[in-house]
């Protein structure tokens, strides 16, 4: 993926131990990192040497010689330290690191007494105090979702230590490999893909067993499968007609980077409905306390409109929502909204905020606004196979040829959410307002313009993906067992909130 900053791919050996050489190559091709880091936990020399053969950039292993090593890629410098003890001298020898990577950094916890401290904090703080810049600390002992600013004191001075995890994310279905786009200002964007979505297993309907069956029958690449006929796959023991259909559809979707429809069902909304509007909301997390940006793309007018709350406060978290819904009501009598995974996220929270913060529009929202979710239609309801490593919007769009560039590419939703959260905390009453200067200097500010461009890119991609789904020819016949494995596609391809029906 192209972006500003250096792409760091961090791996735990056990997360990729089951991947064969083609799949591991697929990992490297997919993330296209500038640097590969193998974390210390569960390290395995065989995996490391396979990586070294496959990847022509630097592969740094945390279990290597206990030494300090630096790598500068894409103008971003990384300092790797085998232990925190080594950071002492490193402050003299390598004072200019943008990122310090050390797996010794890890919380030590006592849940009974509610105590949590950071192992290695003193050493990190001393490095930070003596170094020239304001490095971010990365650790393979924590998952890539970890993002916490620790505080420490060095010679009476308070020092802030931003610590981020890099290790693969633990998910119920298995590990998810994560790459971090690290820019020089300390901004980190994370993208991740389940570890079992590489090689043949990237195909819908192919798990380890089926992958093995395909390989033993001579289909060892996705391209080979894409060229196979359903009949040919059917003749393999253990692969039934509907699975074969699914596998071929998926292989062609991936190989040709196109959408393959699996049913003849029309794509909602029906063509006689109002022109769809594509929407996306930005929040402060998966359980939002605020919706601070709502982007809308109207394809008929080719116009992007957004509602942004550039002075978000917790006193009025629904300001953007209110603006949005009153604009919508004024402009569109019976609009059809489309949002990616909207049924599980955007609509649910919009409705919650409207009910509370714009109750006068609640009835309009419930009675006159129709909501659609192309993700739900395509993936959960098995109506189409999408190209892309995962079914996340950016992956699908990327596979369809929409690439982001500039500021929008260096952002991800979670990072934006995190910044908003810090902003809200920074404006935490008059007390912290007084030292707001130092806070602002340390916590990355929000580039509202970049955020809006990120959101715009999102809704335009959504429109492009939707168009691709509509443009794909409907399946000519109903699959024989349509719906029989209705949930399979969602098992590991989505990481949105839980789908279980509780």
């Amino acid at each position, binding site marked *: 993926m192209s972006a500003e900053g250096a792409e760091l791919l961090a791996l735990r050996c056990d997360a990729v131990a089951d991947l064969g050489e083609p799949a591991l190559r697929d990992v490297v091709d997919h993330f296209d990192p500038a640097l590969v880091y193998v974390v210390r936990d569960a390290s395995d020399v065989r995996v490391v040497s396979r990586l070294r053969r496959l990847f022509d950039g630097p592969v740094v292993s945390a279990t290597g010689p206990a030494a300090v090593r630096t790598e500068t890629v894409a103008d971003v410098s990384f300092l790797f330290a085998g232990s925190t003890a080594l950071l002492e001298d490193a402050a003299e020898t390598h004072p200019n690191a943008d990122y310090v990577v050390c797996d010794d950094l890890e*919380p030590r*916890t*006592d*849940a*009974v*007494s*509610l*105590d*949590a*401290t*950071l192992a290695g904090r003193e050493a990190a703080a001393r490095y930070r105090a003596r170094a020239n810049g304001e490095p971010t600390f990365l650790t393979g002992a*924590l*998952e890539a*979702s*970890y*993002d*916490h600013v*620790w505080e420490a004191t060095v010679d009476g001075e308070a020092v802030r230590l931003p610590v981020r*995890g890099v290790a693969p994310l633990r*998910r*119920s279905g298995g590990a998810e490999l994560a790459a971090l786009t690290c820019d020089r200002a300390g901004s980190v964007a994370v993208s991740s893909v389940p570890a079992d979505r590489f090689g043949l297993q990237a195909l819908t309907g192919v798990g380890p067993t089926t992958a093995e069956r395909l390989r033993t029958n001579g289909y060892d690449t996705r391209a080979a499968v894409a060229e196979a006929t359903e009949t040919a796959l059917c003749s393999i023991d253990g692969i039934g007609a509907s699975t074969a259909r699914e596998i071929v559809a998926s292989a062609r979707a991936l190989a040709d980077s196109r959408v393959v429809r699996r049913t003849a069902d029309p794509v909602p909304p029906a063509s006689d409905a109002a022109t769809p509007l594509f929407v996306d909301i930005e929040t*402060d*997390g*998966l*359980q939002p*306390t*605020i919706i601070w940006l709502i982007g809308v793309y109207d394809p008929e007018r080719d116009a992007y409109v957004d509602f942004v709350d550039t002075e978000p406060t*917790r006193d009025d978290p629904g300001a953007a929502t209110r603006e949005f819904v009153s604009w919508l009501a004024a402009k569109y009598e019976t609009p059809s909204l489309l949002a990616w995974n909207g049924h599980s996220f955007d609509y*649910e929270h919009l409705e*919650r905020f409207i009910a509370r913060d714009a109750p006068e529009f609640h009835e309009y929202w419930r009675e006159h606004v129709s909501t659609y979710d192309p993700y739900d239609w395509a993936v959960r309801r098995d109506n189409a196979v999408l190209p892309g490593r995962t079914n996340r919007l950016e992956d699908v769009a990327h596979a369809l040829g929409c690439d982001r560039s500039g500021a929008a590419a260096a952002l991800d939703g979670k990072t934006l959410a*995190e910044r908003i*959260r810090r902003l*809200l*905390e920074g404006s*935490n*009453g008059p007390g912290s307002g007084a030292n707001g200067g130092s806070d602002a200097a340390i916590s990355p500010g929000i580039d509202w313009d970049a955020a809006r461009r990120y959101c715009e890119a999102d809704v335009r991609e959504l429109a492009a993906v939707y168009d691709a789904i509509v443009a794909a020819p409907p399946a000519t016949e109903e699959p024989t067992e349509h719906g029989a494995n209705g949930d399979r596609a969602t098992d590991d391809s989505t*990481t*949105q*909130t*839980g789908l*279980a*029906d*509780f």
Partner: protein
Amino acid sequence: MPPDDTENPMANRESTPTDGLALTAAELVETYPSSRYGGQDRERFTLPAESASHVPAREVLPSELAAKLAVDPWSHQADALEALSAGENVCVATSTSSGKTYVYGLDIARRFRENPNVRALLVYPTKALSRDQERELNDLFDALGLEVTVGVYDGDTKRQEKVRIREEANVVITNFAGVNQYLEGHHRWADFHANCDLLVIDEAHAWTGISGMHAAWILRRARRLIDWYGGDPQYVLTTATIGNPAEHAEALTGEPATVIDEDGSPSGRRHLVFWDPPADGDGSGSGGGADTGDGDRGGDSAWTPSKRPATVEAPEVWAHCCDRGVPSLLFCDSRKQTELAVGRAREYLEIPSLPSRGGTELAAYNAGHGKQSRRGTENRLKSGDLDGVATTSALEVGIDVGGIDGTVLLGYPGSRQSFWQRIGRSGRDEREALSVFVPSHATLDQYILRHPEYLLEEEPESAVVDLENNPVYLQHLQCAAQELPLRREDADRFGGLDRLERAVEYGRRTGDLEGSLAGGVTYAHRDRPQDEISLYASGGNAFEVRLAGEESIDHQPIGRARAYRDYHEGATVLYRGDQYEVVDLREDRPQPYVELEAVDVDYYTQSQRQTTIYDTEVRESRDVGPFRLNWGYGTVTVHHDTFMKREIGSGDVRAVGLETGVPPLEMRTQLCWAEVPHDVERAVTAAHSDYHNDECEDLPPRLHGYLGGIHAVEHAMIAVAPLELTVDAADLGGLATNRLPDTPGTSGWFIYDGVEGGLGFSRRIYEEYEAVTRRARDLMVDCACGRDEGCPACLMDDRCGNDNRPLYAPAATDVIDALLGDFDVEGSTVLETNEETDGERRPPASIS
């Protein structure tokens, strides 16, 4: 799981025999074959009849409803309805079969008339009870002519059904494990929450200890979400009689409740007999051993209880009752026991020398029989075709047993609540009834045999719900944050601001929580923290219980402490009356599990533990007599390293010292400990320095008596704790030591909660120390064994890592007397102080 009255006090009854009770207690003894009688009739009580106290229905219900109700409500039902009208929460603590269901049933009915969209959430302890209650409530609402929709929403409910229930049902019946899960999808319940008027917790006394704290936090989470959607429900809790209903209700819900305990339901006269199995002179029966779950220890003590086991005696008494026209239930602990009991009873009735009337029909009843066969037994019982049924706890609740006149209890069921519940299955409405308790040779049974006032007069056990446990608190905080951002306003509900702030900071540092209380704290991951909650474990990492092969077992996950203790490889597990053996214990994977295999063996297992305690931290102290008593936290390392096999029935030791293969378990937990004053230690040591136990060569010879004393106090206190608290003694552990960790110049003994973070039990024992030690003293002094070294029914504990050595009751009673102020150190003749026992020369000696 303790049960409840699911009987419908107002429905039509099956016909009961018109003639009276065939045998009173006196007649039981008179008619008992003299060749079999050796003075078993140890105690006899007559509990007087209580007449019903009614309140006219129209006084508490709108007239249309009152008109449709066939019978006037009992006074406690009316009281509860009135309190609910006044906007109060209520906790109904009345007897078995006192129609507690009608309290909320009628309340829902009258609310429904005002608002057909009214919603109520009913939380039952088990899925089985849920279905029974659904039926009963539907019958009630039908009788009242109301279209109230009732739905059971749990793991067995179909998806489409779930949607319908969420959207339409006025009454949703579920269980705590379900509520824990459903809260995550609260937006699907928006309408339900907004209209939720009533939250009912049935069998509230069952929620104690570790599951109690989970229940309490789940209720707080539920209440917060209901608030958010604008609902404002009242609570109805129903409970068996417990010592602290008001406190328990508030601990569970976080809100005060009006206790309704003036029982207005009627009961007939009841004859209760304590039937102590006779000395077994002729060696018949199964060899004069003890019953499952206890037994004599091998080794140096050759003492054996010379009694017939209750497993032999109880079926005979039961057979006699049934034969003499008292249709009776016999309550047993396991499925196997019910089958054996029927066999023994039939043999007994066929002995030609005994004057049996013949034609007595008996059957066994347990979950192993399959639904159809059980329905058949129930019907034959109701119709009078059967004279007696031997049952597991399966018939303790719910199912209508018809006109049963007698109940026989094979052993004490472990709690007073369960005792009365079982007893109460005989005698319906105002009919006279006969109940016979046949004690086993086990600690609690023997205590109760000697202290019937415990059952009849004293305050019932207190239910303990402890919200101190931080690992459990953190788990629920993560769930709450995932459900809706946590804010400062939530502090009152979630442990107070100080604790909440510390926990949030902890969660931010570990990366599990994000944000601040001012803006809203949310859960940082995409998984469902609710999935990590196991109602029976603390702090996650629960072991799944599986069955080898294709079959599945509906067994709750268990905590690590319990897995190591009772589910190590080779352990036998008795679950719902069936025997299993643990064939695998694995924790080198994300989901640890134990695997069971059904077996049919004639032994059971018990593990022994080695305990060490360090890093104690005093949180509270008080003086008890001259003793210093502390409560606080400590690090306890428990190693269940070996186990033994004992024969079922006789209790004979089959094998000892088998290895469990589990590693030591270290936990930070709550504990209480007593520091023995130096002069008391010196006096007791000197007074008993002659006592010597050859097996204790590791211990200084002079100290066998004293150490045996404090070791015995520790054992006895744990043994009697279930008499004061609703605690499983297995969840407590102890250690007696010559050198306390923080004050090595002092001896004392610990009692700790056997779960990471603690359970609040040691805390209660700290508060009730005098009462518990008094009971411990009674236990050792009164025991029929009369042995200084005790027996399995008093001082010995199969889990003892020191093989129950040394144990010495005379020194123990001296120590307790000193603690209770009944032992005069000055006055005792043994004041020659021995300097060397003080200070650095004190030899280290710890016994658990």
